[in-house]
């Protein structure tokens, strides 16, 4: 990692340069909720000023830039009684500005699954290789708990990361591309004072978290609490609407749909993001459902998120952004569910 410091006005010049040459996305306010709170999403931007880099956090994560909600995996062309398959992994290069640490760490987790795991995905890889990521630190929201999972700091998985030093940004440069692009503008080597400020900023952010979720030992905990009655309590509230998985930066499971076009000449095989909360997630031909109850399905989502699977070293895949909790109409959020689970098991298991 190489570190530099840049003034905010130079930074603006830098971003505008990128915007001019590349398709660029950044945080923009899309709505205001009934309480007057702004709602942000990553949208295409055409100038620096269209973005709001002092935003809180986007409602939905950046996941869908890498795992689009719908994506064509292959096409078939029919000729007579024969067909030909065609596959394509190309995407145009693009820049995303203003990612939060949880976004970046979410991608780092998806990398483990889609690049480093068994059967690396060329679709994901193509998107990942062609996206230039600029992250930014910020003060956490009331309900963010990324710090509990140690995802409030970034280590890798981005091109450039900016820490706010007031009038300047402290830049962590993690790619040669970013290093070269920065030659276009004026940057300075961090002084001793800059470094101190940078560390102070990090400490300040770390101290600002108001929500903590105790996750130590959670994997084995979830194995033990598989039959806990708290699942029914929360399961009864769940709408099985899949909203949580759509907004989550790390929920990645999917379904496949094939359809023939009306011309009857071509067909598409499409992947679309799914969620284990959805009723037929584990339903097989003949109608048997391996997770027939709402609580089975809700529990499963927590199981995947906090226990983790072998694919990612059995570590939790939740980054603690609480997007799911914010979006869930039924008020189901990781903090409350996990706390409940812990309380429950305290009553049950003898203290050791």
């Amino acid at each position: 990692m190489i570190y530099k410091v840049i003034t905010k006005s130079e930074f603006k010049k830098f971003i505008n340069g990128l915007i001019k040459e590349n398709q660029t996305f950044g945080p923009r306010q899309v709505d205001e909720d009934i309480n007057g709170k702004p709602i942000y999403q990553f949208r295409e931007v055409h100038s620096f000023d269209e973005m709001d880099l002092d935003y809180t956090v986007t409602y939905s994560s950046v996941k869908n830039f890498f795992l689009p909600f719908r994506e064509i995996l292959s096409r078939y062309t029919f000729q007579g009684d024969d067909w030909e398959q065609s596959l394509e992994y190309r995407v145009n290069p693009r820049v995303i500005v203003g990612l939060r640490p949880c976004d970046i760490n979410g991608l780092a987790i998806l990398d483990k699954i889609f690049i480093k795991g068994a059967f690396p995905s060329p679709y994901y890889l193509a998107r990942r290789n062609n996206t230039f990521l600029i992250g930014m630190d910020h003060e956490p929201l009331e309900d963010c708990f990324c710090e509990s999972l140690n995802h409030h700091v970034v280590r890798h998985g981005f091109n450039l990361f900016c820490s706010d030093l007031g009038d300047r940004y402290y830049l962590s440069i993690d790619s040669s591309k970013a290093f070269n692009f920065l030659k276009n503008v004026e940057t300075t080597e961090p002084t001793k004072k800059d470094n101190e400020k940078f560390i102070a900023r990090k400490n300040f952010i770390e101290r600002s978290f108001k929500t903590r979720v105790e996750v130590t030992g959670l994997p084995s905990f979830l194995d033990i609490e598989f039959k806990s009655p708290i699942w029914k309590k929360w399961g009864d509230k769940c709408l099985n609407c899949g909203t949580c998985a759509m907004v989550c930066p790390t929920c990645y499971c999917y379904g496949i749909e094939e359809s023939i076009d009306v011309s009857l000449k071509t067909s598409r095989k499409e992947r679309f993001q799914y969620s284990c909360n959805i009723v037929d997630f584990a339903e097989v031909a003949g109608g048997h459902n391996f997770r027939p109850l709402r609580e089975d399905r809700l529990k499963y989502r927590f199981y995947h998120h906090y226990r983790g699977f072998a694919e990612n070293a059995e570590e939790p895949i939740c980054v603690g952004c609480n997007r799911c909790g914010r979006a869930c109409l039924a008020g189901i959020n990781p903090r409350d569910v996990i706390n409940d689970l812990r309380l429950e098991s305290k009553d049950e298991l003898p203290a050791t």
Partner: protein
Amino acid sequence: MNYRLLKQDINLKPFMTMPPQFNRKTIVMRTDKVYKCEIINIVELTGLEKLFHLKILDPVEREIFSFRPGQFIMLEVPGFGEVPISVSSSSNNREFIELCIRKSGRTTNMLHRAKKGAKVGIRGPFGTSFPMEEMAGNNVLLIAGGLGLAPLRAPLYWVIERRDEYRDVAVLYGTKEPEQMLFTYQYEEWEKVNHVKLLTIVEKADKDWKGRTGLITELFEEINIDPDNTYVIVCGPPVMFKFVCNHLDSLGIPMNRMFVSLERRMHCGMGKCCRCMVGSTFTCVDGPVFDYWSVLNLQEAI
């Protein structure tokens, strides 16, 4: 001043020129590329099941494709869907593979309407297999319920082709009704030529049925099982293998010598879609073949 990002295509070179090798898990490949196959023969087995002989058209791809007993492939019917199907033929047959398919939904219904000569695609093979080599020198007991006989044909062929390496081989097979029995035309050959002890049973007899009636566990009374030297493979609906494995367990067969093949919904076969998860285990990558001890250790397996 230059800010332009160059398009970075993933390096397809190593695998653009050759067909995907699904048995290599760690290289980037065209994961959704299928091997095109022709249906060279269709055998009607019952009202619901047909046996399809599939020949991979490209000779190079045919050369590359090989599987082990217990593995499955993803069968693609372009435009209609993709389904996991166990290979039901001998792994020595490098000319074509056999798939025994039940008509049970969108994709399989279409497939049942397909004619000889039709073209479909396959990806794979995927998943774990039965440890056939480890079983050598022992008795082999194959227990199937219903459609479960289809995946058991692969290990059965393996044993038959190397008959000298194994001791007593027995197949216990049960279905609901006599007309649901699969591969009846092969029974005589298995018994007489290959020296496989075959016991069948149905839950509900019809007027022509002269064999046994009852549950598959009743067949245990008719064979001698030597718990110290027997490997068992069980394939069938979950209720069935639970009963069967419990019984075998009580006979003293070590749990790591009993194998089952689990069935779950599958959309990728590659540990990505999560549809096949049993607890924290992927049926498609860590399974479908599990030993009974692992199954007992999986959350929500049975």
